[in-house]
């Protein structure tokens, strides 16, 4: 606490006025030689304590009155980050005034009185001294003499677009920023940064041309998403670094939305603190929070999920949409609409959703055309936050799913070949019973069956999404490597062992960098005795494909009777990517899966022949194999549903027939010689491709073509909606399910949606700002005036004189009330006189009065 007029504090001496008056009165006490002591003493005994208390109350009130008036005139000031709070100092001064009063009235003797008065003066003096110290410290702290670079970070998160009193907080923030700039000196430079889910610097370096700044403000738009504070601070730091002024400051104007303050990430805060410390002077970070709206009506689409990752044209896909009420009141959206490629495909009712509740709405849709499709879900409601009422996703619909079945059984009898059952299961139509409807599934999958010896005929596996090795004794070295490459580029391998397998070989099958390809070791084939057959344990099912099966109520997968299986050895320390998808009775693994590069490998413990188990004969077998196939094919899909990002990239493996593939065939190598020579040794740089943004603009994306991977960097992406990347034929061929063909161009679409976390208003707490306070020179201000004060080098805070003035008025009222009350108690003015006259006198006065009365009545008449 400090004072605007500290000199007035000398006026505190005036507290001695009531004290001195009291003491003077006592000093001046007239000596009365008194006879009627017995009445006096009697009264005194009765009233002394009470009188003392009354006098004490009056004296306290008077001393407090003088103190509060003097303090009010001295205009105490509470800086926002007070070294010593007014909450302590003011009471201390008031208490010393009270002490003074108490000493005056109660102290038994002069020594005590003086000691108390001295203590009171000492305490008050100490308090005043501390305030002065604070004044000095505050002045030093906020002093700003040099010209400065000010980075204004405006929160552009989703919540800033909510309207409070008819205007969005974003617009309010711009108004405050403009006011702040208007208060700055002519040589102060300003850079403006808008930060939401991504951070957008509106100026490259701090500028001081006001017209340019106005221009920038008129074009500012919120970017949506969560306010990424740390990133914003880093951008502000680099912007300040580009500035030339000696002093640096960062202003954050946000609403009190708590998201984005990364309470659980101290290392990031430390990092940003280090970044700020690199500046010539450590910048002061000042945060101003606009009020969050008190009413908030909002529904959001928190999740859109396809029930399967691999979508074919073969069957319907369920689109599950979760609608959540993140507002403070119950809402009733008029419906929810599904659009595919812009065509409305129907809408559904939702009903009333209570705050905090969510509802799951499911749409069914069958895609007829392969390739990428935009799936829009729109919530039909007008609420405070419009951004989160729709979401766009890209459905990648596979034209076909090619599976290579490699049969190593060496048999020619179809029923002894495991591939036969797999082939039938995968390609024949089958009835899949859902809960209430029976669906006939037209298989998407096309298979090619070859014997293990025919592997040489397959130049590469890129034509297939999934390869199934069935009872293959061993692989040739080149096949093994090709297959490894196939997997690491995103292919799926289902390994089904049989009697012919040579476990030693598969134990040694490793990738170039030494990782085993199979998720577990084939140890030994086990032939169970007739009474010791095993069954899959439903509770152990962890693999998503199996879990999907379990959802079908009529699946009999767990009824399978296993009489022969391979014992699978798992490393004690499992690789993190290895999961045991299912086990049999006794805990033996049934299905083990691992990720390898971009692909996946599933190892089955049982063969798909009828001799080892009755699984292939069960009705559950075709769906089981389908789900496994879909699951294995999934990694080949590109991730096309994205959140806003400052650098959005796509990273995918090159097709093996590209010159960069591991073993380019000589014929193709010559055909594409020109590119091959350039790209095999060093990355191709500088190549760009066009990207169409949702708003219709076209920007260029950078393409990095490495030896085996291609990386497309789209750069900063914050608009929500569908983006389209123009890709070449080769990529279109590699990812046919992810491409839209438009005329002769191939477009790779991707959708950007906001995360739904911003849909909820979570007030920012002091605790959440803990790291900012710990690592930065961080300060929050309560209003615009304080913000300007901090930036201009004045001490920010608020004055307290009003409270003191109110207190003084109250004390005056209390004083007059108490004195009146005391007077009433003492019956001043209403005291009845003591009658002390003789009967004769009484009589004579009565007579004279009667005579006078008589005279007056006579004269009147």
């Amino acid at each position: 606490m400090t004072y605007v007029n500290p000199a007035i504090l000398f006026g505190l001496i005036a507290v001695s006025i009531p004290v001195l008056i009291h003491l003077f009165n006592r000093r001046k006490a007239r000596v009365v030689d008194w006879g009627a002591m017995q009445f006096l003493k009697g009264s005194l005994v009765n009233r002394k304590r009470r009188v003392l208390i009354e006098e004490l109350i009056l004296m306290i009130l008077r001393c407090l009155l003088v103190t509060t008036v003097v303090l009010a005139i001295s205009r105490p000031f509470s800086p926002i980050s007070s070294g010593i709070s007014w909450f302590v100092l003011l009471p201390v001064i008031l208490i010393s005034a009270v002490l003074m009063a108490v000493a005056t009235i109660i102290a038994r003797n002069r020594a005590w009185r003086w000691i108390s008065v001295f203590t009171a003066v000492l305490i008050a003096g100490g308090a005043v001294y501390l305030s002065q110290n604070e004044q000095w410290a505050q002045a030093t702290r906020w002093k700003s003499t040099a010209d400065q670079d000010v980075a204004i970070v405006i929160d552009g998160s989703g919540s800033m677009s909510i309207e409070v009193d008819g205007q969005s907080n974003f617009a309010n923030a711009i108004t405050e920023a403009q006011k702040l700039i208007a208060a700055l000196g002519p040589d102060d430079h300003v850079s403006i940064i808008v930060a939401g889910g991504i951070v957008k610097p509106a100026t490259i370096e701090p500028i001081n041309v006001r017209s340019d700044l106005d221009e920038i403000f008129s074009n500012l738009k919120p970017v949506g998403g969560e306010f990424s504070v740390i990133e914003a601070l880093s951008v502000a730091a680099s912007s300040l670094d580009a500035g030339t002024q000696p002093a640096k400051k960062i202003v954050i104007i946000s609403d009190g939305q708590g998201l984005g303050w990364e309470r659980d990430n101290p290392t990031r805060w430390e990092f940003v603190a280090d970044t700020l410390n690199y500046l010539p002077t450590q910048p002061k970070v000042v945060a101003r929070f606009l009020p969050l709206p008190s009413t908030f009506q909002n529904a959001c689409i928190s999740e859109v999920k396809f029930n399967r990752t691999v979508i074919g044209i073969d069957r319907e896909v369920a689109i599950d949409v979760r609608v959540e009420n993140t507002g403070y009141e119950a809402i009733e959206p008029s419906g929810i609409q599904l659009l595919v490629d812009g065509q409305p495909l129907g809408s559904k009712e939702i009903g009333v959703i209570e705050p905090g509740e969510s509802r799951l709405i499911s749409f069914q849709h069958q895609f007829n055309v392969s390739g990428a499709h935009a799936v829009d879900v729109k919530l039909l409601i007008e609420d405070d936050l419009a951004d989160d009422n729709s979401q766009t996703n890209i459905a990648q619909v596979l034209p076909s799913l090619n599976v290579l079945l490699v049969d190593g059984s060496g048999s020619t009898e179809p029923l002894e070949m495991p591939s036969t059952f797999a082939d039938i299961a995968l390609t024949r139509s089958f009835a899949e019973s859902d809960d209430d409807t029976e669906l006939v599934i037209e298989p998407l999958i096309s298979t090619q069956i070859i014997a293990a010896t025919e592997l040489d005929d397959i130049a590469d596996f890129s034509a297939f999404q999934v390869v199934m090795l069935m009872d293959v004794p061993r692989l040739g070295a080149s096949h093994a490597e090709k297959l490894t490459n196939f997997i690491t580029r995103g292919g799926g391998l289902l390994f089904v062992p049989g009697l012919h397998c040579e476990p030693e070989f598969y134990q040694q099958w490793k990738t170039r960098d030494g990782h085993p390809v199979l998720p577990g070791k084939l140890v030994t084939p086990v032939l169970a005795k007739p009474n010791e057959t095993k069954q899959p344990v439903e509770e152990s099912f962890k693999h998503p494909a199996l879990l999907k099966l379990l959802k079908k109520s009529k699946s009999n997968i767990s009824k399978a009777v296993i009489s022969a299986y391979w014992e699978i050895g798992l490393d004690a320390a499992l690789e993190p990517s290895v999961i045991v998808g299912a086990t049999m009775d006794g805990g033996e693994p049934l299905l083990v899966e691992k990720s390898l590069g971009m692909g996946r490998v599933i190892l089955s413990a049982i063969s798909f022949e009828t001799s080892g188990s009755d699984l292939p004969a069960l009705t559950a077998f075709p769906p089981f194999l389908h789900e496994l196939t879909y699951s294995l094919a999934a990694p080949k899909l590109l991730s096309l549903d994205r959140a806003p990002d400052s650098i959005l990239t796509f990273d995918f493996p090159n097709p093996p027939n590209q010159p960069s593939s591991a073993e380019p065939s000589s014929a193709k190598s010559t055909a594409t010689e020109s590119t091959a020579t350039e790209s095999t040794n060093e990355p191709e740089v500088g190549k760009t491709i066009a990207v169409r943004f949702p708003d219709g603009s076209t920007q260029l994306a950078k393409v990095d073509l490495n030896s085996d991977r291609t990386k497309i960097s789209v750069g900063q992406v914050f608009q929500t909606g569908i983006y389209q990347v123009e890709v070449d034929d080769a990529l279109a061929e590699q990812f046919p399910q992810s491409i839209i063909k438009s005329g002769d161009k191939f477009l790779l679409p991707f959708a950007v949606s906001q995360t739904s976390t911003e849909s909820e208003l979570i007030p920012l707490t002091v605790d959440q700002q803990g790291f900012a306070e710990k690592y930065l020179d961080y300060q929050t201000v309560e209003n615009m005036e304080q913000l300007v004060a901090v930036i201009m080098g004045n001490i920010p805070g608020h004055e307290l004189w009003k409270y003191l003035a109110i207190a003084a008025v109250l004390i005056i009222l209390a004083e007059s009330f108490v004195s009146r009350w005391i007077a009433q108690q003492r019956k001043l003015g209403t005291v009845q006189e003591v009658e002390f006259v003789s009967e004769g006198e009484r009589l004579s006065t009565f007579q004279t009065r009667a005579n006078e009365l008589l005279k007056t009545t006579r004269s009147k008449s």
Partner: protein
Amino acid sequence: MTLEGNQGGQRLLRPDSLGNLSRLEFIARGVVEGFITGRHQSPYKGTSIEFAEHRQYVSGDDLRNLDWRVFGKSDRYYIKQYKEETNLRSTILLDASGSMNYVGERAAKIDGQMVSKFEYSKYLAAALSYLLVNQQDAVGLVSFDTEIRDYIPARSNARHLRVLLNTIDELQTGAETELAGIFDDIAERVHRRGLVVVISDLFGDPTSLIKSLYHFRYRRHEVVLMHVMADEELTFPFDKWSDFRDLENPGSHEELDPVTLRAEYLDRVRGFISQIEVACGQMEIDYVPMNTRVPFEVALSGFLASRRNGQK
């Protein structure tokens, strides 16, 4: 204010007040054994043989007592008076306690100086003595504070008056009063029924005071209670911090703001007075409040007038 001893008791009997008083007569009320000569018929006749002195004839005197020999010589009427001639034995009890010393600022002035309650009482006592002696009544005097200080048995001759007046004049105030005990003591000493005049501020425990007054009544004395108080004691007009020093207990004092206590004080005083007044009414004691603000001769004549009226 002190009285100068060499001037004698005469000083107390100021000519103006005496002149005033001599027109008035002290009339005892009720059945009293002795009467003022001439005015009342005494149930007893003076049978004393021992000549005491001559006295001027006043109309109404019994002609039998006229000293014809003197008449023959000087052609003046004198009455022969004998010792123990009259039967009204009056005793004036004069309170000489410290509290009587209170003067105040509103007291009546005598010789341009304000009188303390004590002086006021002394004047009263002197005037009464004079009156009574003048009426040939026997007057005794007891002054007391914690104990009896002077005890002059009742006599009625002129010399006795001088003794009385001198004694009164030389009286000084002493310590605290304890009226009750003293009164009991005096009641024992004064055997013959008569008039007891108490001049005091009566400070002390009123209950025991009343009890000892009853003692006088039991002895069938007629009691006149002259309650002398200063106006300040009755109105407590102080409004500034004051240091009240106890007149009866030097060294004891109370520093206080009188305003805070006024109501309570007055309540107490009122209670005290009314308690005594009521008791006096019950015991048929003549209660005479005397405010020192009222000049004592005014107060005395008022008292005497009321006595006379009461007699009629």
